[in-house]
């Protein structure tokens, strides 16, 4: 009878043990190992030597490429995140309209997000080709001579932004479900008061979906900073290193230059940067994110905008 009680207590842990073991072996363990590795000079083919903070110091003071790649990735994130959000929101608004065949449009808009990044890179490699690509052909029809997207260092970054906007479907769907959940009487009340659809959008829709915007901003930023597959497959970091993102830089350090310790340090620096940015956004969120539940629960000014 005590046995039964013990088993009862232990059973939850037994249930989650596969996940815990998986987490430790595949996530937590390697995470800690990579932290340890970042304190070593760890070439692939010979012995690892302890260097303490040497890797980090070298990264910040001696390595010019570190700063270049970081700046480039920040630039990319700064362009990509607002653009992605804007497009996702716009498309989400489109598919909430009561238009005939809206379900088909929903599917069409979502399909690109399902395609694997390898296939996306190959497709866009063909579309963006300077001489035979479809994009330049379409541009030529309206009289614009398209640049050589993947060869011209001035345009390669925009090419990557364009291609990564392809995966906007997931965010669009999240926005869509959130917008659909807004009670319709809010809109009715507003139109009774004489608000047109633009005013309705900015005064009703946007404030209510701010929690979703917060979520999407954070996931977008994390994805933008970690962008690797597209860059590796579409431009390889070129031309002339104009798309040599931080992820590519870390990968090359690890597998091309065989500096595993240094690459681990790179990865941890990126982790810290993303952590700080995310924390910062969360902090600022109290100023612009509107939680319905909190308003209903409390009367005090926690939800009031900063005066």
């Amino acid at each position, binding site marked *: 009878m005590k046995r*039964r009680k013990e088993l009862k207590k232990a059973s939850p842990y*037994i*249930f989650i043990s596969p996940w815990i073991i998986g987490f430790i072996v595949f996530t937590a363990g390697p995470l800690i190992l990579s932290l340890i590795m970042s304190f070593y000079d760890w070439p692939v*083919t010979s012995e690892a030597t302890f260097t303490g903070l040497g890797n980090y110091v070298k990264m910040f003071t001696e390595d010019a490429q570190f700063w270049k790649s970081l700046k480039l990735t920040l630039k990319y994130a700064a362009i990509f995140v607002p653009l992605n959000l804007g497009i996702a929101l716009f498309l989400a608004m489109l598919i909430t309209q009561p238009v005939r065949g809206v379900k088909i449009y929903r599917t069409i808009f979502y399909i690109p997000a399902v395609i694997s990044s390898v296939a996306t890179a190959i497709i866009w490699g063909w579309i963006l080709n300077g001489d035979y690509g479809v994009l330049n052909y379409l541009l030529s029809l309206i009289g614009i001579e398209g640049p050589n997207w993947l060869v011209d*260092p001035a345009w390669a970054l925009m090419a990557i932004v364009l291609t990564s906007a392809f995966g906007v479907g997931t965010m669009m769907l999240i926005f869509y479900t959130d917008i659909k959940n807004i009670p319709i009487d809010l809109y009715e009340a507003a139109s009774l008061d004489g608000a047109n659809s633009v005013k309705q959008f900015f005064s009703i829709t946007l404030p209510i979906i701010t929690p979703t915007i917060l979520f999407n901003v954070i996931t977008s930023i994390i994805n933008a900073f970690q962008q690797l597959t597209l860059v590796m497959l579409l431009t390889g970091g*070129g031309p*002339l290193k104009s798309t040599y993102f931080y992820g590519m830089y870390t990968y090359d350090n690890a597998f091309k*230059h*065989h500096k*595993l310790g240094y690459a681990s340090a790179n990865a941890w620096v990126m982790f810290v940067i993303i952590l700080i940015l995310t924390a910062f956004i969360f902090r600022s969120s109290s100023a612009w994110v509107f939680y319905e539940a909190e308003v209903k629960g409390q009367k005090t000014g926690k939800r009031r905008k900063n005066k």
Partner: protein
Amino acid sequence: MKRKIGLLLVLTLTMVTVLSACGGSGGNSDSGGKTKVRFASWDNAEDLDSQQELVDKFNVSQDEIEVTLEAYGDDYDTKISAGMGSGDAPDVMYMWNYPSYYEALEPLDSYIENEGAEYKDNFYEALWAYNQIDEDIYGIPVGFTTHALFYNKDIFAEAGVTEPTDDWTWDDLQAAAKTISEKIEGVTGFSYQLQADPYDFEMYLWSNNTAYVDEAGNVADNLNSAESVEAFSVFQNIQKEGAAITTEGGGTDEFRSGKTAMYIYGAWSVSTLDGDGVNYGIVDIPAFADSGREAVSILSSSGLAMSKDSKNKEAAWEFIKYWTGEEMNKERIGYELSALKSVVESEGVMEDEKSAPFYSMLEQSTGYTPASFLVDDWGSLADDLELALERINNPTTLEDPQTVLDEVAGAH
């Protein structure tokens, strides 16, 4: 009672899931007493299929060793690095980047000596320099190719230009390329790779009596010497005249489809071009008019190396001997050039007009050591050289070679 059974079921299920996940790759246990040898290759598609057939042939021919072919494809370097890092590299592997990997490879001098002097002499001497670090040999040459100039006979005939010869200089090539580009719509005279491998590109410097570094490994005054600048400029000049395009790959695709009339490449495309039925010829790479010498070619040589951590070194050596032996060399004719003198003689490879130019380039190219073997930090120099080549040859930038090379030399 029910609860107990239910809990037991859950427990069993959990255990099974966990253990099956761990089960996966592991046991190197011998099946039936055969020694297992793992062999990694970087080939794809049809080449890989033919390699698998040859490996099967080996396994069938004897009872002691079983070889498994591991196809690493384009991720070859990543997978090999990962294997070496975890002490789990394959027993036998294709190798060409000795400076980066030699510390994890087994020196093979003692094995070679045991085979007797004839064994070593049968390989072309030039190849050993590409498979050793300092005095230790780390790989047995599998095959090699030099580079030569491919040209499309039909296009030359159509444009009314005389075909290239072994005595051509770069000026001749530029003139011919220009004429062809002007006369025939949609065809460019010459193509070369945009993101050229700096390792390969050094051959043009050698052809002009210079190199990336001197014997001591100094970059200054070698990389940015006047001769070197000339070598880098020659391609840019042809492009500026509108007589050359840069290609993403080696240039075979453009050549096969008749978009270009000439390109420089190794023997890898011979069977592809034959299969397509392209009417092409091969001659030596043009010389630099002022260099006073014939052109030199890099040796793209691949070797078979053994892992230092291999548990079955004797068996691995047996397989290496087989793969680099006469029989295998004969099988690979048409894709690579044979590294064995005996095979070249017996198969009359020198008489074949498609292979002879490569061997003549080989004769002109002995005695050169690539900078990757002379410089400690080849990785970072190669990176800068790659960027420099891009800056010079990218159609939208076309930077001045002297400025770019001075910059690179200054940084090293």
